[in-house]
């Protein structure tokens, strides 16, 4: 059993909501008065759990509550959770940016945290000067930076601009330089936030590759991300945070399953039961009823493997036999680029036939091996056929995540590096054969 390098005991963090002003000054005085008399902080007794959707009673909220876990040397721990589950707060406490309200953390070895790259870059200074400044902020000494300077410049690939002020850099060059510095830290424990997910695909690949190297050297990595594919690829263990508490501490596979089961209706299923609020045509003849993402067994899911077929099922009410309708589904990737559009008019509904009154369901199935990894957003639109003006649409109606578990079926074959950036990943047929049996050119 390898040695425990991080031990987190009963960590909780309370935040006060709302503005700081005269009201908080009264609370501060009251708190101070309690401490003078040796009493406990009166405001620690109260506080709601961290659920940003629910409107709480109290001005105080527990962003984290009673977090306990241990990390062993060489482990790569993935921390996942919805927005606002407390991931960032936990990272901030671990990287000593802020202090926990209660609890203690014990750690062994040098901790470096990458909550952001390029912290402390000064726009007026040259790339060279910023390497030293940023390196020192991240905890390197001047001699350390000097010895790695050439490596850093090489890695960044911007050697020609190294004496130009960074304010003249393109944002890409800026990030490259910043990451190059961060990549040459040599901590025993590395804490990485999902901010590394910004930047172009090549850069992301470089980041993930570097993290893999780090974990390969027996370093401990804590990785927070929304990118389930990356978590699955990199991590050996996972922690799922929900509403400021640890919902599950288990293997990565279990964590991802649990995450996708969390609040399914928020992601992969949407229904409009209230006829007043449901999106509808201006003349109310057509009303949206539901949209859900299903796997091949007909179960609502948020995470799909690239090798699974995915069905999107929509429901709508027709209140009057008046129109011939056409359902359109727009599939978009995380940056809003449309991958493709599916239209129902070529299906079973005959062109020009008015649809009788009733509840309809339409299902569109995307074959296995179609999407590349990533989050897919679906826009749900119903319009007339032929299209003349009237329509109803819900942008980002549902979303789901496509991930790759890296076994060797599908388009991947035995390629075990990250898949090159691409919009789709079809599993095409290949025919490779020898056409000449000779070694002369």
């Amino acid at each position, binding site marked *: 059993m390898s040695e425990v390098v991080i031990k987190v005991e009963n960590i909780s963090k309370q935040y006060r909501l709302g503005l700081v002003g005269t009201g908080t000054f009264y609370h501060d005085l009251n708190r101070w008065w309690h401490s003078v008399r040796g009493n406990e902080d009166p405001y620690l007794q109260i506080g709601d759990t961290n659920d940003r959707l629910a409107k709480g009673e109290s001005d105080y909220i527990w962003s984290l509550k009673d977090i306990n876990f241990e990390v062993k040397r060489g482990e790569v721990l993935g921390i996942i959770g919805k927005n606002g589950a407390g991931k960032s707060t936990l990272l*901030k406490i671990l990287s000593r940016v802020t*202090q926990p309200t*209660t609890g*203690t953390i014990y*750690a062994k070895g040098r901790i470096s*945290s990458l909550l952001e790259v390029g912290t402390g870059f000064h726009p*007026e*200074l040259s790339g060279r000067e910023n390497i030293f400044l940023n390196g020192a*902020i991240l905890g390197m000494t*001047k001699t350390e930076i000097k010895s790695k300077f050439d490596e850093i410049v090489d890695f960044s690939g911007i050697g020609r601009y190294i004496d130009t002020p960074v304010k003249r850099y393109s944002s890409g060059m800026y990030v490259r330089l910043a990451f190059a510095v961060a990549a040459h830290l040599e901590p025993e424990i590395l804490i990485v936030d999902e901010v590394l997910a910004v930047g172009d695909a090549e850069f992301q690949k470089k980041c993930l590759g570097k993290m893999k190297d780090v974990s390969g050297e027996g370093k401990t990595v804590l990785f927070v991300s929304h990118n389930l594919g990356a978590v699955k690829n990199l991590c050996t263990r996972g922690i799922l945070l929900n509403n400021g508490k640890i919902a599950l501490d288990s293997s990565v596979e279990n964590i991802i399953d649990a995450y996708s089961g969390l609040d399914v209706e928020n992601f992969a299923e949407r229904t409009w039961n209230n006829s007043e609020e449901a999106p509808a045509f201006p003349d109310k003849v057509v009303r949206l009823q539901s949209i859900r993402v299903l796997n091949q067994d007909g179960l609502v899911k948020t995470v799909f493997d690239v090798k699974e077929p995915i069905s999107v099922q929509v429901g709508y009410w027709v209140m009057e036999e008046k129109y011939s309708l056409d359902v359109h589904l727009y599939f978009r990737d995380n940056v809003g680029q449309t991958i493709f559009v599916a239209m129902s008019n070529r299906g079973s509904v005959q062109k020009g036939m008015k649809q009788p009154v009733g509840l309809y369901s339409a299902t569109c199935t995307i074959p296995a091996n179609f999407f590349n990894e990533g989050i897919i957003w679906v826009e749900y639109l119903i319009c007339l056929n032929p299209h003349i003006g009237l329509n109803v649409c819900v942008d980002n109606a549902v979303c789901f995540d496509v991930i790759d578990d890296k076994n060797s079926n599908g388009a991947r074959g035995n390629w075990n590096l990250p898949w090159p950036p691409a919009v789709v990943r079809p599993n095409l047929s290949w025919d490779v054969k020898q056409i000449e049996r000779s070694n002369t050119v």
Partner: protein
Amino acid sequence: MNEQENNNNNWDLVIRSKSSFFDINLVDLWKYRDLILLFVRRDFVANYKQTILGPLWHFITPIFTTVMYVLVFTKIAKIPTDGINPILFYMSGTTLWNYFSSCLSGTSSTFTGNAGIFGKVYFPRLVTPISTIISNLMKFAIQFFLVLAVMVWLFLKKGEPIYFGWNWLLIIPLLIVMAVLGLGLGIIISSLTTKYRDFGVLVGFGTQLLMYATPVVYPLSFIADKSFKWLIVINPLTYLMEAFRFALFHHGTMSIYLFYSIGFTFVAFFIGLMMFNKVEKSFMDTV
């Protein structure tokens, strides 16, 4: 898991929810000494990027201030200068005053001005105010050479005496006291402003008012018999300023009250350190 067992485990780092007032990590600060120097360099270099005159601006400000002071206070208001040449009197006064006020205003915005960096990465927060003090010291050195140059020029031109001697050695401890006072008051204010910004507003015009309560544009001897003298005397800066002039010119008031200034300085510094230490751990939540 009990406390005993954790202590035996040789943890390199322990993050606790409560920290004591006196838990100042000097070892950590020493580890980051390169960062202090790089911050000093950044402040100095970045200030003069894309200017034509560059560091020459350090000369221009005190020269014009001195010209104005000589015109207003000597020519118009006819305030005496303790037998020191008015140009030297005002120039030395503003040089030392500028050092104090830039230390104070620089360090008092430590938390609010660096929230961006502090929110993303840990390093001992004390690095920033200390680097401010040092980079201002460089500015002071440049301006002090200007004072010396003017002194030599006046000696050659008008035969004004130069009081060079052992007394000049006093300048160094006086500067240290001035720096520590600026740092101490600055970090007190910066600790107070993380949650309530009221004090930050105060610093701006507060230092301006304080300058008139310090013998910068008049000698202490000039107000010796005035009824409001106590107001000037309780100001710890008063005797520092006077001692500075005494060290340079052998004119001015050197008195036992200097120890009051020194005592005040160290009390302010330790209160500041304690407050800073308390605030730095959690200021990100309130800033």
